[in-house]
């Protein structure tokens, strides 16, 4: 088991390095392919008004004129050990994990990312509980009442749910629920941290949770229903019934358990993706999370900030992958033996 975890951990670190390489390559090569020189990139750091000498100095300071591979290793080194920028009078230190300096704020990117992680975490945590419980319950009921009105109606709603983008349902619930009934108004669009005022925080979060969960619950209901229908046809379900187990036990202990394994896998990955920034939900509800930061940074052309968000998002996904793999191995010895 320990060997399995170490092997997977090693693979995960390797995966993060590969993703960092590709991400770094794309963000610093694509602008160049598109016709930007290192000088233009440096100009973005300094701002449009700076004189050529300042821009050139910044280009040298940030190693933008170095070969790509050198820049990549510098990036990884800074990420792990932090970076000292030394340009004459301009001394600065960027503690690890150093994603570089923001073009716009001239401060390290990581503290800004870190301050936004809790918001995304709270959004993802609340919504994921809602969608997992809601989606699986609806899926199981649908599968057990296959072809009946309950099944048809809930699958119809689920299909509608997967076809509705969250930025549309967000506006609809803003206008038809929040404004019409004057409920869940929060602090009038202002973000309130949980520890400042829990009630206002809750009032702020309920509708974002619901809109995000609705979309995902629809997906999970469809997946659960399909999984349950397949499992219920298995021989061991027939055996369980034949040995006289009550139907409740057959469904809860035998069918649902087997159905949940792939669902939990997908859940882990979805959660990982979401933690990297629920971009659409955060934008639609103006929540100051990682996703909103990504959008703001792109609007500002702030490459290091964008790179930072993408890297954090990738790390969340890889970690979620790892956790799912390990849980799988705990549940099923065949997995850890196969490697």
């Amino acid at each position, binding site marked *: 088991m320990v060997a399995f975890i170490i092997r997977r951990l090693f693979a995960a670190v390797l*995966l993060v390095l590969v993703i960092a390489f590709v991400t770094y390559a794309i963000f610093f090569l694509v602008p160049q392919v598109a016709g930007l020189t290192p000088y233009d990139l440096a100009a973005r750091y300094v701002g449009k008004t700076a004189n050529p000498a300042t821009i050139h100095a910044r280009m040298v300071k940030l190693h933008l004129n170095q070969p790509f591979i050198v820049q990549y290793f510098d990036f990884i080194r800074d990420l792990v050990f932090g970076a000292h920028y030394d340009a004459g009078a301009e001394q600065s230190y960027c503690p690890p994990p150093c994603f570089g300096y923001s073009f716009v704020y001239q401060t390290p990117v990581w503290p800004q990312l870190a301050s936004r992680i809790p918001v995304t975490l709270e959004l993802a945590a609340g919504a994921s509980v809602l969608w997992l419980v809601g989606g699986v319950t609806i899926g199981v009921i649908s599968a057990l009442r296959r072809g009946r009105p309950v099944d048809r109606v809930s699958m119809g709603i689920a299909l*509608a749910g997967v076809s*509705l983008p969250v*930025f549309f349902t967000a506006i609809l619930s803003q206008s038809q629920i929040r404004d019409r009934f004057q409920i869940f108004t929060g602090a009038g669009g202002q973000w309130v941290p949980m520890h400042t005022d829990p009630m206002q925080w809750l009032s702020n979060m309920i509708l974002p949770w619901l809109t995000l969960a609705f979309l995902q619950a629809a997906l999970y209901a469809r997946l659960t229903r399909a999984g349950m229908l397949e499992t219920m046809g298995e021989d061991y379900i027939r055996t369980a019934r034949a040995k006289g187990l009550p139907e409740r036990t057959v469904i809860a202990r035998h069918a649902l358990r087997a159905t949940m394994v792939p669902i939990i896998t997908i859940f882990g990955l979805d959660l990982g993706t979401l933690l990297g920034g629920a971009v*659409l939900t955060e934008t639609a509800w103006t929540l100051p999370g990682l996703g909103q930061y990504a*959008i703001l940074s792109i609007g500002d052309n702030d490459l290091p900030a*964008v790179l930072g968000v993408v890297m954090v998002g990738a790390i969340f996904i890889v970690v979620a992958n790892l956790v799912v793999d390990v849980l799988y191995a705990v549940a099923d010895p065949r997995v850890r033996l196969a490697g």
Partner: protein
Amino acid sequence: MTVPIEVSGSETQADPEAVLAGLDRKAIEGRSLSQIAWLRLRRDKVALAGGGVVVLLILVAVFEPFLVSWFGHPPNEFHQNLVDPNLGGRPLYGIGHSGISRHFLLGVEPVNGRDLFSRVLHGAQISLLIAFLSTLISVLIGTVLGTVAGYFGGWVDSLIARTMDVFLAFPLLLFAIALAGVVQGKAFGLQGDTLRIVLLIFIIGFFNWAYIGRIIRGQTLTLREREFVDAARAMGARPAYVLFREILPNLIAPILVYSTLLIPTNILFEAALSYLGVGLEEKTATWGSMLAHAAPDYALDLEFVLVPGLAIFITVMAFNLFGDGLRDALDPRAR
């Protein structure tokens, strides 16, 4: 070796003609997979309705310039005489101040008074164009790499499978947003909306191939072990022949199903990118950007929100219904 079973009496003697007498003669003809699928699909009224809407949408997108010139106004023509500057630019006329009239079939936009009918139609054209071409790219890359990985195995398979893992581990939306945001103005000898459309097609197409690739690889792995592939190889067929003539025809069904189900995903993807402001140019009408513009004014003119929102909903729903039906028709086990 068959062991002869003791058969006695005439009651076990079946008369084939008698059995068939009550049946339509056609019923026992051999049917190809596509015939069986079509028979099943024809009975699925919901899927057919979805398919009908899809065909209608494609026609609308293709004939958009004519429809706009007959029934609408140019998508970027301002009609500020139709909005009330004192009420934040709310449309003056129409049911519930939507601006709907004989000349503006879906009303006008607040503030600028642009024709929503023309804009939503233009959005349909862009949305379908990007969704179809990006799906084509995903399917091409996914099929080629999936079959190669599944058929050849070994280190080729390991390499491609690991690449797929990397792609699946990417924060796709975040990455696509970042990439679409990084390239600005002129690039690759293109500029303006042409550049944006080509860019979006490649980004969306390039990031979705791994899903379809994995499915195709799995299918190829099972097909490779089938007898007809062994037979072809035993007769000395080259790998290319086996891949294209033996394996690929058997992959048509999953490719068709997953393409149909990938199109609505890509429509949502494009809408999301446009909504976030990294899609096409500001002035160009797309469903996502219309929603982004409508969002701050939803209290002023809800109809402005509903038009692009429902356009996305109906389109995605139609593709999903058709795709689900197609899957059920081609693979009854998935039902």
